[in-house]
C-alpha cells in the first residue's frame, strides 16, 4: 500500500483560501489538515509531521503594514509554547529535510518577505525581492495566461508549458533589490511563471495581460531546489472545469482544472522522493 502524503495548510489571522487549498491537496491524492496557527504556537501541531506546507491566500493581519509583513514578523518571531523550537526553526528544518512549500498570493508574499524566496544561493533568511502595489494602484480579480519556464527546477510545474489562472490581489508587483538579483533569478530559471499572451508564447509587460507591472512579467518564483514555490495567481481557484470563466462556452474543457496539476506534481514528487 502506498504511504500517505501529508499536506498542511496554515489558517488564521486573515488567511482566506485554506479550505480550497485543502481541497486541491486532497484531490491531488494527499491527506490534508487545515491547522490554525494557534495550534502550532500551542505546540499541539508540528510542521515536522507533514511533507507539504501550504501558505494560502488571504490578508494576513489585513496586510496593514504592507502585504504579509506583519505575518512574516509573526512567523519569524513567535515562540512555541513549552518548546525550544520556534516556528521559524520548524520552517527551516522543513526546508532542510527536502520537503515542499507552496505559497499562493498572500502565501507567496509571506514567503518572499520571510526570505524563503527566491533564496539565491539557498540563503533562506534574507529578503531580496518583494511584492508591492500593482501599478494600477488597485486590487483586481482577473484571469491571466501564464507561461511556464520548462528549464526551471520547479517540481510543481514539471511537464507544463502554460496555465490559465485568476489573480486576485492589490499588491502583486514583483520587484527585486537590484539588477544582479534579477539576473540570477533569470539565469537560474527561478522565474517559473510569467504573465503572457493568450497563446502562452511570450511574457508581456502590458496591462491587463500583466495585471500589476511585475518586473520581467514575473508571476511566480521558486528556489534553486525547486521545492519552494510561490506565485500570485491562484491554482486552487481552478480545480474543476466549472471554475473556468468560460466553461459554459468551451465544451471541450477537461473536467480537471489546470491548477490541480501543480498539486498533483507536488504529491507525485513526495511519493517518489520522500516516502
Amino acid at each position, binding site marked *: 500500500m502506498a504511504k500517505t502524503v501529508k499536506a498542511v495548510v496554515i489558517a488564521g489571522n486573515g488567511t482566506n483560501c485554506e479550505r480550497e487549498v485543502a481541497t486541491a491537496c486532497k484531490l491531488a491524492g494527499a491527506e490534508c489538515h487545515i491547522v490554525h496557527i494557534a495550534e502550532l504556537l500551542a505546540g499541539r501541531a508540528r510542521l515536522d509531521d507533514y511533507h507539504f506546507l501550504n501558505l494560502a491566500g488571504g490578508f494576513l493581519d489585513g496586510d496593514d503594514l504592507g502585504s504579509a509583513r506583519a505575518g512574516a514578523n*509573526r512567523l519569524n518571531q513567535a515562540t512555541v509554547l513549552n518548546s525550544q523550537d520556534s516556528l521559524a526553526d520548524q520552517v527551516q528544518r522543513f526546508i532542510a529535510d527536502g520537503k515542499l512549500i507552496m505559497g499562493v498570493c498572500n502565501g507567496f508574499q509571506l514567503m518572499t518577505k520571510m526570505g524563503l524566496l527566491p533564496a539565491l544561493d539557498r540563503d533562506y533568511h534574507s529578503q531580496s525581492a*518583494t511584492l508591492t502595489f500593482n501599478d494600477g494602484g488597485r*486590487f483586481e*480579480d482577473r484571469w491571466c495566461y501564464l507561461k511556464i519556464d520548462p528549464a526551471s527546477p520547479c517540481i510543481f510545474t514539471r511537464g507544463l508549458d502554460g496555465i490559465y489562472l485568476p489573480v486576485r490581489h492589490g499588491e502583486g508587483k514583483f520587484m527585486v533589490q537590484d539588477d544582479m538579483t534579477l539576473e540570477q533569478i533569470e539565469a537560474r530559471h527561478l522565474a517559473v511563471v510569467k504573465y503572457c499572451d493568450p497563446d502562452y508564447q511570450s511574457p508581456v509587460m502590458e496591462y491587463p495581460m500583466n495585471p500589476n507591472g511585475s518586473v520581467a512579467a514575473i508571476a511566480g518564483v521558486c528556489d534553486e531546489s525547486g521545492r519552494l514555490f510561490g506565485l500570485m495567481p491562484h491554482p486552487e481557484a481552478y480545480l474543476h472545469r466549472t471554475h473556468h470563466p468560460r466553461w459554459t462556452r468551451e465544451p471541450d474543457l477537461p473536467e480537471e482544472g489546470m491548477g490541480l496539476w501543480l498539486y498533483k506534481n507536488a504529491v507525485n514528487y513526495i511519493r517518489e522522493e520522500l516516502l
Partner: protein
Amino acid sequence: MAWRIIVGLKDNVRDARGERVKREIREHLGVALRSVRTMDVYTVDADLTAQEVAAAAAGPFSDPVIQDYAINQPLAHDFDVLIEVGFRPGVTDNSGRTAREAIQYITGRPFAASEAVYTSVQYLLSGAVDVAVAERIVSGFLANGLIQRWSIVPANEFDRERGLPVVVPKVDVGSHQVAIREIDLNVSDSKLLQISKDGMLALTLEEMKIIQGYVADPQVQANRKEVGLGAMLTDCELEALAQTWSEHCKHKIFAAAIDYEDTTTGEKQFIDSLFKSYIMRATRDIRAQAGDNDICLSVFKDNAGVIRFTDDWSIVFKVETHNSPSALDPYGGALTGIVGVNRDAFGTGMGARLMFNTDVFCFASPFYDKPLPPRLLHPRRIFDGVVEGVEHGGNKSGIPTVNGSLVFDERFAGKPLVYCGTGSIMPAELNGHPCHEKQALTGDRIVMVGGRIGKDGIHGATFSSEELHEGSPVTAVQIGDPITQRRMFDFLIIARDRGLYNSITDNGAGGLSSSVGEMAEDTNGFEMHLDRAPLKYDGLQPWEILISEAQERMTVAVPPDMLSEFMTLAAEMDVEATDLGQFTDSGYYHCLYQGKTVTWLPMEFLHNGVPQLQIPARWVPPQTDEPQLPSPDIDSTIKQLLGSLNICSKESVVRRYDHEVQAGTVVKPLTGIANDGPSDAAVVRPLADRFDGVVTAHGICPRFSDLDTYHMTANAIDEALRNYVSVGGNIDHVAGLDNFCWCDPVKSEKTPDGEYKAAQLVRSNLALYEYCLAFGVPLISGKDSMKNDYQIGDTKISIPPTLLFSVIGKIDDVRQATTMDAKRAGDLVYLLGRTEDELGGSEYYALHGELGANVPKVDAQSAMNRYRSVNAAQKQGLIASCHDLSDGGLAVAVAETAFAGGFGIAVSLTKLDAPQGLSDATLLFSESASRLLVTVRPEHQAAFESLFTGQSCRCICEVTAFNELRITSSNGNPLAVSPIDDLKTAWQAPLKEM
C-alpha cells in the same frame, strides 16, 4: 515617550499609491499636480528602547527591498506642500493595532493599556500647489474631517531636522466622572420632549408619557426600592428603552396602524401592521400551500432567514442597509455595512460559515456638476468611498462578492443607498439538533466575544458634527476591522462545532442592550455587569457601555460547565472573550455597575410596551401622460442607452471585488468571450464534493415608483426571479428578502406629503404580498430604512421609494447553469414573453427627460409557466444562453448578448409577439416584464419549442458570424446595423476609469 517612525519608498521606486492619488485629485477636484508621493507614519506611544524601535522600523514596518525609514526625523524631501492625515482620537486604526501586535512579537512584552501605535499618511505634493489648494485637496478628497485630522506644511516652513511634531491622538476623556444619572420624568410634556431631544433618544411624546406613567406606578416604585434603585429612572434605563423602542430596532412604521384610502376605487382599509398583514402573511400562506415542499426553516425570528439546501445543509441570507453612515463617511460606513451584515449571516441559528456577499449601491451620477446643498458629499466621493469600503470589508474577510448593481438617480444625492447582503451555510444538524435553532438557558453565562467597547456608534443615527471637537472620540462614524472579526469567526466556528455555547447573536444596532436583551427573551431575564466589559479606553459611562455599537462583537450564551473550555480556546486563538453575567428567569432586564443595580426593567415592558404608531395614507395616482416623441435614430439611441449610467458596464467596480475566493463561484459576475459580459445572477457551489449550487439574484427599479410603487414592487420581484431563472435557479426552490428604503412616510410639518408616501408604502406591500404568493416565493428576512431624506433649510431631497428584492435558491447541478453570452453562430434567438406598450419609467424615456405613464405590469401566472419551462430546458441542456430583458428593453439585451458572446445577432421585429401597431422604438425599448432572450442550437429547436407550447415564444432570428447587430423593422425594412465592437465600446465607456 512617543516615537515617530516614517517609512517611504526609495527614490527610484514607483509610488503606485501616490500616482493613483494624483490621478484622483485631478478627476475629483480638477487640480493637476506634477507628482504625489506617499509615506507611512507610525507614532509609537510606548515604553520601548531605541533598539526595539529600530527593530520594528527595520522589520515589520518597512520593506528593505523598496523602502527607507527614519526615526524621529523626517524622510520627506523635494516637495512643495506636505500633508499629513491621521485619525482623530478613538477612531479605529487597524494598521495601528497590527503595528502594536508586531512590536509585541519583537519585544515579547504586551503593551500597557495606555500604550498604542497610531498611524498616519504623508502626501508630498509637487506642482502648482499652495496651502489653500492643499486645504481644498485634503478636505475635498484626501480626508474626512469627521474621523480624520491633518496638518499642512509648505516646503519653506518644513523643519528639515525634526520634521512634523509628534501628535499622539489618545482619547482624552477629560474630567468626566463615571456616574449614574437619574432622570426626573415627573415634568411637563414640553420638558419630556426636551429630554428626548437633548438626549438624542428619538422618543415621541406619547412614548415618553408611557415611560413617565410606568415609573410613577407605586408598585413599580416599591419594587425599585427593593433592588436599591431610586424613584427616578437611571440614564441606563432610559437609554435602554430608547434603543429598544427605536425605529431601527422596533420597526414602528411597519408595525403601525394605517388608515389607507385608495381614491381611485374609493376603498378604505385599516391595516394593523404592514409587516404582519403583508410580509409575514405572505410567508405563512406560501408555507401552508407548500406543505411537505416547504423550504423555509427559520423566518423573521433570527438575524437572517434560513432555508433548506440539501438534506445535510441549510443556507442563510440577510441583506442590510447602511445609508446614513455611508452618507457621512462613505468608506467607513460601507465597510461597517458589509462586516456588519457578515455578523448577521454568521450569527444565525448556532452560527453559519460565510459563503458570499452581494452589494447594491444607489448613487447620484458621479459626474454630477450642479451646486450641492450644504453638508452633502459629492456623489463621486461617495461612489469611491463606498466601493472601497465594501472592497476592503469583503476581500479581507475572504468572502466572494458575487452579485450586485449600481443604480443611479439624481435624488440619491440626498442620501445614497448602500445595500450589503451575505449568504452563509450551516449543517442541517449540529450535535443532534437543528443548527438553525438556538436557545439560551437560565444560568448560561453572557459572554461577549471580539472587539472592545468604545464610544463608537452611540446615537449613531442622530449624529451631528457640531459636537465633535479635537479630543472627543467620534461616535457616529465607525471603521470596521475585518481581521479582528475574521479571528472571531475562526474561533466561533470551532466553538460551535465543539458545542461550547447554546446561543449566539450579533452586537449591532443597540449593542449589548439589544443583543443581550433579545437573547434574554429565551429565559425571560438577565443579569449583566457592565463594569466587566472590556473597554477601548477609560471613561465610558455605564449607559455608553450598554448601548455602544462598537463593531466586531458577538454575544454568546455559554453553559457554565463549558465556560472554561470556551475561554481557553478564545485565549489561544487571540480572541478576547469576557464573562459579563448570566441569563436568568427573573423577568427583569437587570444591569449592574460595580455591584450596584443600574437597570431594573420588566422584560415585558421593554419589549412590548411601545405604543403603536398611527399613520394616515391616501393614494392619489400621479397625473402623467405618454410623451409624443419623434421616431428616433435607432443606432444612436441604442448606443446612448448602452452608455447610460444604469445600463453601462460596471466592470471597473466588479473587478475590485474578489468574486471567486472560496473556489465556489461557478457563474461569475463577468462572463463571455472576453470575461466582461454582464451576468444576470450568480451561481455558487459551496460544497466541493457535491454539484448542488446556490443561486442568488436581485431586482431593483426605483424609477417605476414615480408612477406606482405597486408596479415598482411587482417589477422588482419579477426582475429578481427572471435573473435567477436566467442562470438556472430552480423557480420552485427560492426565497426572497425585502429591503425597503423609503423617504419618511409619516405626515408631519416636515413631511406634508406623508399621506402620499405612506400610500406608496402600502401599495408596495400589497404588491409584495400578491406577487410573492403568485410566484410561491416565501419572504424569509428583510429590513427597512425609512428616513432617507435630506433636509437643511429649504432644501429637501427625498429618495425615490426603493425596494431591493433579493432572492436565494438552488440549482440541483451547477453544470446545468446557463450564462448570458451568445455561444455560436447559427444558433436561433428566441424572445420569451410578450412585448407590450410599456415605456413608462423606461431608460428610453429617461434619455428624453420623460417619465411617461404606461408602467410595465407583471403577469405572474404566465411568467411562472415560462420560468418553469426555462428550468426544464436548462435541465435538458437545450439552452445555449439566456439573458433577462430589463433596463433598455430588447435592444439592450440583444446587444449585450451579442457583444458578450463575440458574435453578431440579426433581429426581425416582424416576428415579435406584441400588439399590432407598436412603433419600432416601443418594440425595441419597452421594458415589459418577465421576458427572456434565449439562444438555442438549431438541432434543439423542436425539443425547445415543445416545452413552450401555448406560451409566448418567438424565434426572432439568429446568431451570426458577422459581428454586427442587425435590426429589421416591423414592416420588414432594415432599421439599424451596428458593429458589436462599437456597441461594446459605448457600453464600457462611462465608468471605465472609475
